[in-house]
């Protein structure tokens, strides 16, 4: 579920900041310290390097807009169905009101929900893309994610376009309970329609892709691909660790682990992503 994974990752992120004398500079964003090899470089340099560590190749998590910039020709794309937002259909309240969480997330991220759907060209191929926003309540899937996903598929069907989904999600959105669960079915039904129309679907599983997302559209690509080191799984690592009462093996649920067990077609480094996807689209098209 979304929340627990957020917790798990924020712990790692905290780890980045604790053991350095340049704490302040790193916090202020002048320096970036790689969480894997601990190398410190200028944030600016790290950005130019597509947020990939130039020493160990660690792929840091980046927001959807960075992928749009990286992938779309001339950084040109058009967002569709921007206006759809969560309605708090169950009036859900835990320690906070869900409506308050939504409001705070929107204010913090400038996003309407955990998915952004766009149209643009990649290497000259027009495509529809749905990219999840992990920064919005852990990229959790509720009715808005389901609906925007569905409408993106409708756009593909209408204009005969390939569909690319960038998953980055902790799973279903608990505050929409069974409604969020049914989005697994809704998105899978739409992919069934897309498949019947023989339109390609590329699923790019980014760090992290877990829970309901993995149990639906993320694992249903005509091709499933990922970036190096991305976490991909059904149950979150902390939940599994608590269940089995043991530490998880090194590299468990990494993209490399999934490739080895037969659930991914290939892993692409971020710098090669555009070229590889273009090549893939060309092969579908010709």
């Amino acid at each position: 579920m979304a929340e627990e994974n957020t917790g798990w990752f924020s712990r790692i992120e905290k780890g980045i900041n604790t053991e350095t004398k340049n704490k302040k500079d790193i916090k202020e964003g002048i320096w970036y310290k790689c969480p894997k090899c601990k190398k410190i470089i200028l944030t600016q340099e790290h950005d130019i390097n597509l947020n990939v560590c130039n020493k160990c190749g660690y792929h840091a998590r980046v927001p959807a807009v960075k992928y749009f910039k990286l992938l779309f020709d001339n950084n040109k794309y058009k967002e569709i169905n921007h206006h759809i937002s969560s309605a708090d259909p169950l009036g859900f309240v835990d320690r906070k009101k869900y409506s308050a969480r939504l409001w705070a997330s929107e204010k913090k991220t400038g996003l309407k929900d955990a998915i952004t759907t766009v149209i643009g060209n990649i290497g000259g191929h027009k495509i529809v893309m749905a990219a999840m926003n992990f920064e919005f309540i852990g990229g959790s899937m509720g009715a808005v994610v389901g609906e925007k996903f569905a409408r993106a598929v409708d756009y593909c069907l209408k204009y005969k376009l390939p569909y690319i989904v960038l998953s980055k999600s902790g799973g279903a959105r608990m505050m929409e309970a069974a409604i969020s669960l049914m989005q697994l079915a809704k998105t899978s039904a739409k992919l069934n329609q897309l498949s019947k129309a023989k339109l390609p679907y590329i699923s790019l599983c980014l760090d992290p892709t877990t829970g309901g997302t993995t149990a639906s559209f993320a694992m249903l690509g005509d091709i499933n691909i990922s970036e190096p080191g991305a976490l991909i799984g059904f149950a979150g690592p902390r939940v599994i660790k608590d269940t089995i009462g043991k530490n998880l093996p090194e590299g468990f649920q990494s993209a490399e682990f999934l490739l080895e067990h037969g659930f991914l077609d290939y892993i692409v480094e971020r710098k090669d992503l555009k070229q590889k996807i273009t090549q893939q689209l060309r092969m579908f098209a010709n």
Partner: protein
Amino acid sequence: MILLDFEEPIGKLQEQLEKARQIGAETGLNMDRTIKEIEKKVIEKRKEIYSNLSPWQRVQVSRHPKRPYTLRYINAITDGDFIEMHGDRNFKDDKAMVGGFGTIDGETVMFIGQQKGINTKMRQYRNFGMANPEGYRKALRLMKLAEKFNKPIVTFLDTPGAACGLEAEERGQGEAIARNIYEMFGLRVPIVTVIIGEGASGGALGIGVGDRVLMLENTWYSVISPESCSTILWRSREHKVRAADALKLTAENMYDIQLIDKIIKEPLGGAHINPTEMYKITKAEIKTQIKKLKQISPEKRIEQRMKKYINMGIYNE
């Protein structure tokens, strides 16, 4: 008789009943009137309690240790004319997922469901009704078999969730569930889904895409169990009662937000009080639904199935 905490008043009456019977037996006095009166009181008390169950209490009933599980429904509904089938043809036979052909009054149906165990040993054998990837793949194999021979599919949902562990992940738990959900939308035969106990998350939905989805009165269906929801959102297990409220997980809630098609009434006091009656009601309902669904063409049925799920979701625009 195992009583749940909120059934304590019933327990007190049953003690009185037992005492009255004992006195009758020991002294030879005619206690019939007293016994009848207490029996009447038990029923009244039960009515009173069960007409007003909280969501958490329904969760408790759905997990009652005496509640009938999938195979008992199948055996009763088919009157024993059932052949269990095993294995996913790839890895192994998952004991938490059962299935096979059976007949309902002469008509062949494919039955599939999660299976819980009735005692400590069997609970482990059945992995507490938590299926692994091979369980979902076995279910899909059986569904395809049903499609090939044009037999309707009935699925029984009763799971606290899909299995969680190293092996489940290695063998692609997410992919297995996703594949089932996806493939169920394409099946050309009628699918009736009945939630008979716990409907927890993707583990339940993995065999739960139905033309008709029916929930027994004292069952629950949600994206997460109240306990886990409490742990994550309230950071402690103690808020399970509040979580059960917040999740809107009862049959009534699910019907109100149009995520299920019908509620099946249970005998007073829950399915375990009168299983025979429960099987009878369930069988009649399944028969009715299959009959109705058979009148629709496969193309139309698939279209309606998809449309139903595509319409699920409430949002602002």
